[in-house]
């Protein structure tokens, strides 16, 4: 295999970055390009596409003494717990903080949609176990997420002749609105979008940064896909 050459990464002002990958992609591609992996209608899409907004949010979450700006303490703890359960490692990469900062500058409608999803899952915890989400045991939380992620979509969440499962991050209306499934998919969209827009999240998936080759290397898989 031709030896690849990885370009030196230009030192960033704040050290190797977080959640700059998707934003960088958008910046590079210009307008009209959907962020891969996210439904274009999800609110987080617009946030990541707005450099100033994403920069402001990112700067804040990295700062000392950070406190949630949009969510209250109860809501933020609930979000952190749910985010970690949906995508382990999310809190380490501060996906929960990032979501709060984006929500702080979001529209009232998107803020309400998020709170509905968060409250919907929290309400399910109370209905099922008589306790708020954050007080549930791990098996109890998993039980709720399992139910939420596997229940059928309401008919109105589907397009005509369309039985596709919803993309995580589709707008609430596209995922069943006020259904438990809809709440789950909506929240998952926020978490997935935030997590995989970090450098660490991207590198987990094999993102390498720049590499140059003197010639394009052929398949290196042992069987050559015979």
């Amino acid at each position, binding site marked *: 295999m031709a030896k690849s050459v990885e370009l030196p990464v230009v030192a960033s002002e704040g050290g190797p970055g977080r959640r700059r990958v998707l934003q960088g992609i958008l*910046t590079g591609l210009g307008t009209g390009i959907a962020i891969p*992996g996210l439904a274009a209608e999800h609110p987080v899409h617009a946030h990541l596409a707005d450099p100033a907004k994403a920069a402001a949010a990112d700067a804040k979450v990295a700062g000392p003494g950070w406190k949630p700006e949009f969510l209250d303490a109860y809501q933020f703890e609930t979000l952190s717990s749910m985010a970690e359960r949906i*995508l382990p490692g999310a809190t380490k990469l501060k996906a929960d903080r990032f979501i709060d900062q984006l929500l702080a500058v979001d529209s009232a409608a998107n803020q309400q949609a998020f709170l509905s999803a968060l409250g919907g899952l929290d309400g399910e915890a109370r209905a099922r176990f008589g306790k708020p989400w954050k007080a549930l045991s791990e098996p109890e939380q998993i039980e709720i997420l399992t139910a939420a992620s596997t229940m059928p979509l309401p008919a109105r969440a589907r397009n005509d*002749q369309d039985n596709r499962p919803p993309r995580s991050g589709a707008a609430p209306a596209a995922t069943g609105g006020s259904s438990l499934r809809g709440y789950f998919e909506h929240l998952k969209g926020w978490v997935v979008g935030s997590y*995989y827009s970090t450098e660490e999240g991207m590198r987990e998936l094999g993102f390498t940064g720049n590499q140059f*080759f003197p010639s394009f290397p052929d398949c*290196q898989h042992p069987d050559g896909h015979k």
Partner: protein
Amino acid sequence: MEVLEPARVHPVVVIGSGAAGGMAAWNLTRQGIDVVLLDAGQKFDKSGSWEHVPAWERYWRGKRGEGPLRFFLDTREQPYLTPPGRPFDLARVWGHGGKTNTWGRVSLRYAEIDFKSAERDGWEIPWPISYRDVAPYYDKVEALIGVCGGDDDSETLPGSRFLQEAPPPRCGERLLQKAAARLAIPIVAGRRANMTRPTRGFAACHYCGRCSEGCATSSFFNSADHLLPFALETGKLDLRSNAVAARVLVDDRGLARGVQYFDRKTGAEGQVMAKVVVVAASAMDSTRILLNSKSAAHPNGIGNGSDVIGRYLCEQVRINVKGVLRGLFDTPRRHDKGIGGAHIYLPRFNHKAPHQRDYLRGFGVQFWNTGSYQDGAPVASFVPGFGASFKREVRRRTPAWVEIHPFGEVLPYADNRVTVDESRTDRYGVPLMKVDYRIRENERKMVEHMGDLVEEMVKAAGGELVDYRRGEIDKAGAAIHEHGTCRMGQDPKRSALNAFNQMHEVKNVFVVDGSAFTTASEKNPTLTILALSWRATDYLAGEIRKGSL
């Protein structure tokens, strides 16, 4: 409005510096002919190219107020109109090199079957030329610009001995190639204008895969780097930037006498007088210019006594399909962006049994974004569930990502058309273009065939489609392959141009971009635009030397 009439009459004025206009200027100047070239923009500054800026570094640059190159024209600067409920995505690049700065680089020869399609099926008029007429120019263009490809040669995609080595297929592409072979459908090496060896002083491709952001080493063809500098070196080219061409001016006899333009920055009007006008502003803008060039001699737009200019707009119909191949689950991930886009191509195959169906013309298939190296996490939003198993599954499926994009020919229809709206004008007072375009039953049948092929191929490759809805068609205009609005033909009553892109009605006007195509075919047009522009300007140069123009 005061207009200063410049005294000098130039031999030729060319409108537009993309594939068509850049080629025209290059070919005429190297033959000793003075050319004034008007471009609506200016040179894009390659030092501002961001293709090698790591994604996370972009963030900080953006924060400092820096930005990457922006190629596409903002519709707030230049709007266009569409009928209610019938949108059309029009991508325009105003600047040296035009859309060649950011094109997909797919370089496919038209075949005889394409030039003879109307003879075969009787739909609309035939091309006035054949493959034999264009083949020598394909040879020359491929040698000039550096096209990589394989040694395949078929009835629908003629072979060439001028191709450079093709990069090997990515793993997913290899699996799809094998699957298609089991369906008796060949998938060949992609033909792309990426130089895989040094060419004319330009470095070979370095396989970063960021071509669409602008290549700092100019290792893929673009007119601004590969044609215009060479034309300027002759001393015969007068390249005028930010000159937004509005109209072709005519004399009392109805012949062209020059071009009216507006300075993009100041709005000031200017004129260039010339003996010959070569229109090459891309299909849509050229059509707008021609239709706005009204006079007593040409009340319907210059050269449009036949009323064909603006009609027969052919874009291409496309579906975009995503999937994962199980054979690549959990395989080692690698940087395989390569030359960007696809390394393979599935040529049209429906022209003979057993693949024929009850529709006219055909489609080919491209495979961009197939591979393990993906920006973002395209797989993540299609994996159900949550938790550690979700995360594992996203990782497992990421190397298995494939995308399949069939492009199909849209027939020429008289009422798929570009017009100009006198009641709506741009900042220079020039009427806006209106685009009225839709696909019909023939294309819908073709899309059904596309769906069948994609489903069978992915199944045969051991894969599964994700987020798939059968028959979901990309937005009109999304292929950015507009053709046909000033078509060539033998019959002056049914076409605007002769076999050398010269107007039937105005002998000193040549139209050399995609608008001149008689049909769209399923192929990307740039290679053929380059070939036809070269051919047309060879003819033009000969006419000038003879004193015929």
